């Protein structure tokens, strides 16, 4: 393709400022400018916070091609990498190799060390525990003042309890773990609070790993302890693997509970359908549609081309940054007809809320179980649940947060 044509494909004046701002009247929908790209170009240029203009992949089909291409790298130490913000750009040189930024064989090695917690047997054992935590948190909310903040009452504590159960943190330590985990994963904390919480958790996990090296039991901490003994990982590495699970699974699933509830309360006929069903398959289907509709990882996947890649009539050159705009792919009419229609019965499982390719969310089956339990329980147990403030008073996070969502959700019943 000639230089002139490439220019035409991405006229400078129309470059979209990613991630963009949402319309306040329609805070569940991706920004209009981003959605418009679905009609014009599935692959175009976007402009980031630092003025750089990496490739912006918005089409659902193009996202699959890019995210499963081995020439597309997650290595965040390469010049040209499209960082989500300044803090990340400044810290990237110091990032250790983790599951997030590793490619190819390195990624496979790390990921396989982390898959044990997520096998089907372990997942199904967790379902009754997640149900119990959910019931207990709802009990405490109902026993407390009305109205309440759903975010504080349910959405934030549940994921930390869930990760406790996943790792095998003893029950008597749940309160300590939960308190520090919520602090460490909150976005409005100070750097000092963050450091203190991280150190407390790291120290605690190191102690527990050492204990399980002596007396193993049937849990994930014991698996990791076994790997330390076998010389596959060091103690600090094992602590980091646990912390990554905690952080990756916390704000994301909390946000899905809070924002998902706000979405359902704004769509009473869909909420009635969900509340009225006994069919676990229908609830599971609703979870997929809510994941699609909200696509909370609004920052998108950040990648860099290791070689030249031809796609949709453009050439992504080696060394150029790529942003895979997940919300746009999930609202692409070619993959989801009438994407603006929130329909819990639609076929939505091919969504990209957990991304796609080798980095597709490791914790997705756990997140699904958690959301199936919460969406299947909360609205049935509290049928009068409603917003305690006007919809226009809700405080939405900006799109440049790690997970899109609400700062709080005041509810009454």
């Amino acid at each position: 393709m000639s230089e002139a044509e490439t220019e035409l494909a991405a006229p400078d004046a129309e470059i979209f400022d990613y991630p963009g701002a949402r319309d306040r009247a329609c805070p569940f929908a991706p920004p209009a400018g981003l959605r418009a790209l679905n009609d014009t170009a599935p692959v175009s240029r976007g402009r980031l916070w630092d003025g750089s203009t990496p490739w912006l992949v918005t089409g659902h089909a193009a996202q699959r091609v890019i995210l499963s291409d081995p020439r597309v790298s997650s290595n965040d130490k390469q010049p040209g990498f499209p960082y989500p913000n300044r803090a990340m750009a400044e810290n990237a040189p110091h990032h250790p190799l983790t599951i997030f930024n590793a490619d190819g064989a390195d990624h496979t090695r790390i990921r396989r060390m982390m898959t044990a917690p997520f096998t089907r047997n372990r997942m199904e054992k967790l379902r009754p525990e997640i149900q119990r935590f959910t019931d207990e948190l709802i009990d405490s909310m109902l026993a407390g003042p009305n109205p309440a903040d759903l975010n504080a009452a349910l959405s934030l504590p549940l994921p930390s309890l869930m990760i406790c159960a996943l790792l095998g943190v003893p029950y008597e330590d749940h309160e300590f773990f939960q308190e520090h985990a919520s602090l460490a994963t909150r976005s409005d904390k100070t750097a000092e609070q963050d450091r203190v919480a991280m150190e407390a958790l790291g120290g605690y996990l190191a102690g527990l790993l050492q204990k399980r090296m002596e007396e193993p039991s049937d849990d994930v901490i014991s698996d990791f302890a076994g790997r330390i003994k076998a010389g596959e990982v060091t103690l600090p590495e094992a602590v980091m693997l646990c912390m990554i699970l905690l952080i990756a699974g916390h704000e994301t699933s909390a946000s899905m509970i809070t924002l998902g509830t706000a979405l359902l309360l704004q769509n009473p006929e869909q909420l009635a359908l969900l509340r009225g069903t006994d069919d676990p398959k229908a609830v599971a289907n609703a979870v997929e549609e809510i994941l699609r509709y909200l696509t909370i990882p609004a920052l998108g996947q950040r990648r860099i081309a290791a070689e030249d890649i031809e796609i949709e009539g453009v050439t992504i050159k080696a060394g150029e940054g790529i942003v895979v705009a997940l919300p746009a792919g999930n609202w692409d009419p070619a993959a989801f007809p009438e994407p603006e229609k929130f329909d819990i019965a639609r076929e939505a499982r091919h969504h990209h809320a957990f991304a796609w390719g080798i980095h597709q969310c490791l914790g997705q089956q756990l997140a699904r179980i958690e959301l199936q339990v919460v969406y299947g329980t909360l609205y049935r147990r509290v049928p009068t649940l409603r917003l305690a403030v006007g919809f226009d008073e809700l405080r939405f996070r900006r799109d440049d947060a790690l997970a899109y969502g609400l700062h709080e959700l005041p509810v009454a019943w």
Partner: protein
Amino acid sequence: MKVVVDEEKCVAAGQCVAAAMDVFDQRDEDGIVVLLTENPPAELADDVRNAAAVCPALAIRIEE
């Protein structure tokens, strides 16, 4: 229908099991895909195609 899985490519996302439990399972120790039957019966064909389509690592191949 003949199903082929590539254990090297598999990233243990569990999508295939969710789509077609009678055909796919995951190894207990690391979640890597286990093929329960290479030639699934016709009534499972749609589920198996669905599993191949949702596998994020393109680790499932179907030979019709």
